[in-house]
């Protein structure tokens, strides 16, 4: 950012509220250049000579010239000293500021390759480290956005915090999660990925001057706004899951957008796919022809550079019209879990977890958990999943809503098919309660958890893999904090933990994105056991025990590696499968993987190709599937090309029947219905407040909850009614009043369509740490 050349002309003096919008120009978004093969790129800053400087996570910082020639500005970790380079900005003295998120610092470097010159290490008010996600400069003041708490810290040149600016949560919203920060003309702009907002604040007193956004794709809406940058006049927001960059003014009004959401894998030339961050560089703007915005797309391992339209050209309307496709295609993320014949995978764009039944080939998508929202059973974002088929439970860790959500499946013993009524949200445990205990055990670390994986233990407990620290956090079977391990010395020190899995010897194996290492820890207390090098795989992700070995996903080289973890310090190579590409059997940034003993297959989240692929325990490709067309290895050994699996009717053989776990509601007389909570811990009685309810008529409900011994349940009630097969709830927010302990009255509900509605009675303990659901079903004619 050209903070030294003040680009305030006509916009208002420093510190003053924003004046009216500058006149429109000819538009933005001309595609100028593409820089490929930048694995794990998180951000890039463009220069007037057509080059870029790119931050590559643990891979350091590189300068890429216009002709593609590369030179290291900061060597990869550990030699370069930056653990996780996630953002870049130009400091006022011309040096490059690199945000080291896992390192808790902003490093200032000279571009001549002399390495890190100095570091800003701001601390929070209670002396904890920050998790910086972005930095912006106003003269010598650096504004550092904290990804662990909704605070922007204003620091001086030495990194001392001179002021803290807190982003308030919106009414009825979630605690904000900051994505990035930008500063121009007296206004601080931050993105809030939890509430899908862009907010402008006064840096002097933190007063909000404008705040806009909601989750969606229309003008003024966002889907996880990640980065924000400015040319001094306009602000450019990286709208991650809308696959676009949106230009807004200082009031948050949309000016235009560009991106042309890429539809085919690796499609480029101005088409954008999951942009993470855009950074402005080049001329000081607003109309400098050298003004540039570089958009980093880690999903495509590339950076694309865009510029303003030619001012003499007529402005063209910018939108991203797409051919609508029949049905929803899969967009699986990196998270996958399976147990027995039940597989679950997260889809960030729909904020839902898809559940597959593996008893069919290809596996059948049988139901969907969640969907975007703030209520129990909905997701802000899922960062880890676990499955226990025998217990009929699935867990999803949601750091945005701040819960670990526990689900069950209501299966009816029939052949697998899609059933939107299958999910049962059982209970939710607050992550904040776990974080408080972990924070007390680890003073100095950020107060919030950054969970990246969850492993279910045979005894019924869990281990949470936490990037904060990093730490291992043990949970009991009730999802309560049990123990915490952190700060292992020497070879035991994990840096950027990616995934964890139990091996055959009950050790917890942990992969690390900061180097080719797998480490083993005790699953009962987190003690470090030993480590192995995995030469040739500098960026590991998924891990899973397979018969006679361990499977790892090599996210750098698009491969699945089967290794032996024995006595030698180096892991022994057993097999390697997969190559870079998008055809069946090829991989692009493979992520989480899991071995299914029941199926004798290794399931790999082929994240960059939006699908799941199956390999043998020696990495031979077997099949691929998603939502859509599936491919299998042909049976004829002489055939080479993958084929579609033969059509086969799903069979009811071996189908689970869990209906007995969820007894239906019973008639309790006088209009009351009684139903046990999904966990069985209490019983809810409910009835309509004013007689039978008709579609579109407002209604009230009387609700009571009792434990098994008849005592009233001390809790607050949230009532909701949804149509799972339509994917929507009510258009109103009913009001809930406490009537007496364990009794409530709901007013102003309204079911606006005929059909089948699910009623949710969600009870939350007084300390807010636990919520449990009871539910019933009504049919409205």
């Amino acid at each position, binding site marked *: 950012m050209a903070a030294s050349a003040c680009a305030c002309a006509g916009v208002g003096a420093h510190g003053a509220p924003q004046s009216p919008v500058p006149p429109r120009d000819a538009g933005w978004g001309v595609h100028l250049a593409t820089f490929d093969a930048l694995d794990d790129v998180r951000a890039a800053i463009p220069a007037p000579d057509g080059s870029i400087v790119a931050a590559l996570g643990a891979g350091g910082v590189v300068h890429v010239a216009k002709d593609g020639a590369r030179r290291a500005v900061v060597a990869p970790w550990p030699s370069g000293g930056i653990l996780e380079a996630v953002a870049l900005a130009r400091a006022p003295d011309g040096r490059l500021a690199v945000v080291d998120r896992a390192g808790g610092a902003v490093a200032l470097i000279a571009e001549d390759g002399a390495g890190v010159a100095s570091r800003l290490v701001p601390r929070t008010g209670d002396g904890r480290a920050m998790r910086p996600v972005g930095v912006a400069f106003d003269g010598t003041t650096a504004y550092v956005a904290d990804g662990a708490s909704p605070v922007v810290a204003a620091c001086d040149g030495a990194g001392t915090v001179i002021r803290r600016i807190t982003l308030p949560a919106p009414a009825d919203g979630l605690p904000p999660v900051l994505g990035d920060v930008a500063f121009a003309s007296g206004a601080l702009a931050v993105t809030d990925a939890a509430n899908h907002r862009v907010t402008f604040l006064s840096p002097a007193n933190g007063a909000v001057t404008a705040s806009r956004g909601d989750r969606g794709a229309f003008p003024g809406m966002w889907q996880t706004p990640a980065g924000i940058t400015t040319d001094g006049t306009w602000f450019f927001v990286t709208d991650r899951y809308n696959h676009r960059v949106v230009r807004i003014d200082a009031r948050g009004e949309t000016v235009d957008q560009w991106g042309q959401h890429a539809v085919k894998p690796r499609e480029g030339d101005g088409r954008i796919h999951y942009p993470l961050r855009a950074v402005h560089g080049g001329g000081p703007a607003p109309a400098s022809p050298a003004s540039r915005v570089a958009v980093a797309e880690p999903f495509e391992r590339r950076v694309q550079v865009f510029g303003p339209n030619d001012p003499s050209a007529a402005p063209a309307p910018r939108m991203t019209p797409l051919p609508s496709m029949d049905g929803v295609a899969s967009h699986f993320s990196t998270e996958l879990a399976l147990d027995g014949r039940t597989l679950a995978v997260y889809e960030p764009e729909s904020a839902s977890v898809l559940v597959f039944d593996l008893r069919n080939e290809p596996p059948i998508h049988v139901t969907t958990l969640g969907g975007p929202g703030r209520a129990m059973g909905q997701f802000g974002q899922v960062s880890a999943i676990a499955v226990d088929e025998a217990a009929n439970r699935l867990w999803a860790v949601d750091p945005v809503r701040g819960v670990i959500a526990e689900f069950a499946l209501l299966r009816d013993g029939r052949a697998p098919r899609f059933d939107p009524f299958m999910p049962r949200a059982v209970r939710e445990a607050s992550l904040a309660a776990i974080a408080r205990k972990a924070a007390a055990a680890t003073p100095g670390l950020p107060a919030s958890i950054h969970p990246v994986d969850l492993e279910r233990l045979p005894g019924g407990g869990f281990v949470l893999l936490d990037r904060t620290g990093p730490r291992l956090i043990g949970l009991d079977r009730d999802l309560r904090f049990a123990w915490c391990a952190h700060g292992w010395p020497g070879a035991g020190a994990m840096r950027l933990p990616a995934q964890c899995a139990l091996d055959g010897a009950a050790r917890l194996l942990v992969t690390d994105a900061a180097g080719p290492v797998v480490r083993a820890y005790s699953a009962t207390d987190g003690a470090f056991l030993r480590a192995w090098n995995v030469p040739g795989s500098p960026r590991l992700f998924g891990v899973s025990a397979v018969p006679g070995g361990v499977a790892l996903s090599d996210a750098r080289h698009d491969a699945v590696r089967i290794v032996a973890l024995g006595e030698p310090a180096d892991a022994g190579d057993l097999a390697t499968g997969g190559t870079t590409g998008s055809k069946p059997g090829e991989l692009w940034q493979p992520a989480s993987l899991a071995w299914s003993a029941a199926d004798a297959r290794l399931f790999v989240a082929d994240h960059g190709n939006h699908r799941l692929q199956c390999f043998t325990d020696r990495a031979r490709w077997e099949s691929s599937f998603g939502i859509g067309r599936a491919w299998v290895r042909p049976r004829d050994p002489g055939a080479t090309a993958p084929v579609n699996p033969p059509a086969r009717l799903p069979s009811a053989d071996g189908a689970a029947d869990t209906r007995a776990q969820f007894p239906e509601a019973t008639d309790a007389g006088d209009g009351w219905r009684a139903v046990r909570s999904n966990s069985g811990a209490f019983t809810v009685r409910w009835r309509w407040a004013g007689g039978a309810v*008709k579609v579109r008529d407002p209604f009230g409900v009387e609700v009571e909850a009792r434990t098994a011994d008849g005592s009233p349940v001390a809790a607050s009630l949230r009532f909701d009614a949804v149509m799972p097969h339509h994917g929507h709830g009510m258009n109103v927010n*009913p009001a809930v009043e406490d009537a007496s302990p364990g009794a409530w009255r709901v007013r102003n509900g309204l079911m606006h369509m005929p059909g089948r509605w699910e009623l949710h009675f969600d009870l939350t303990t007084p300390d807010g740490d636990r919520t449990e659901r009871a539910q019933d079903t009504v049919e409205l004619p």
Partner: protein
Amino acid sequence: MSARARTRRPRPIALVAAGTVACAAACAAIGRAPHAAQPGPRPGGWLDAETAARVARNPPLPPVPPDPTNRWADDASAAHLGHLLFFDVGLSATQSVNCATCHAPAYGFSDRRALAVGVGTGTRHSMTVLNAAHQRWFTWDGRADTLWSQATQPFESPAEMNTPRATVLAHVLEDPELLEAWTRTFGAPPAVATPAEVDESFARLGKAIAAYERKLVTGPSAYDRWWTRRAAGDPGADQELTDDERRGLALFFGKANCFQCHHGPNFSDGEFHMLGLPEPDGGPPRDAGRYAVVDRVRTDPMNAAGPHSDDPRGPVAQVSASLARTPERWGEFRTPSLRNAAETPPYMHAGQFASLEDVVRFYSTLEGAVALDHHRESVLVRLDLTARERRELVAFLGALTGTAPPLPWGDAPVRRRPAPSKGARNPGG
């Protein structure tokens, strides 16, 4: 508060459903099997059982339902006053615009324009006022929850009449005929001494206009006559419809699926939907529709829960006070009634389609529909109707045209002395 405020809920669809359910319950109570004679055409001939059942739920309009939020809703004096106000250009800043400028009797109480033109040009197409009393929400985005509350909005809207409420009420005070009608209705001249009194008088102005608008109901259409005769078992019922109209009816309630949203006696579910309609200039979608007004409805002092409502705790108020603004509301617009649609081109919220043929072609091909991302399934499914089927559907829509509202309501009132005007702009007279 009058006894009217305690009447049962004024929801025509619910009344019909209640009647149907009550009939079946009564039959069951006396030991008879619920007979196929739900009121309505029986299956047989060119109507299969499923389609016949749907048609049965779409009878002619019942009487206008009561409006407990407006104690003068059915008051004759109020209707007379509202009739005068509706056609009085003196209520606008330019002395040339009245309600009838955009809601002209000769044009089906619409205006034949894509975008309304009052004092300035608006952003939406003028909806018809015909049968408005049967609706649940008012205006394309439903920013008014009662008929009388909607009637107050155009006065102060810059593009519509651009007149502050105090000026509107001053005009009433200055015009002897209006003042007389007002006093006869409300018992005293409009009170304007304080802002609170001005607001209450302004609300009453809206209530009088609403009382008039409740008179604007259409008479039976060809469809209504057919429905009634068929329900009575009249073998000649089909003569009320042409062959094309009958086939269009079967499509409407059958494979074309129009009934999904256009059902009930008023051919509207009263709800809001996002169809992906293109913007008039072809640019990116800009009109947020329902999403932009939900918060306003909840807090509007003129809403059914507010201080000027005569039923502030009734069912309409309850809903308005608890509306939720969710992202799914973006771009949603109200399902309009299809009654008399053939009289009120162009169509859709910005008049995007010039003719019913264009409307039916859009639903059939979805050409030009806006899809902002491929992850969201559209509410609509491409129908791929043949040209003949599209023609038949349009013909059926014409069969929904009912007779004009009775005089004197259906036209401008006869004034004792013409109101001063700079030239009325009433299309068609």
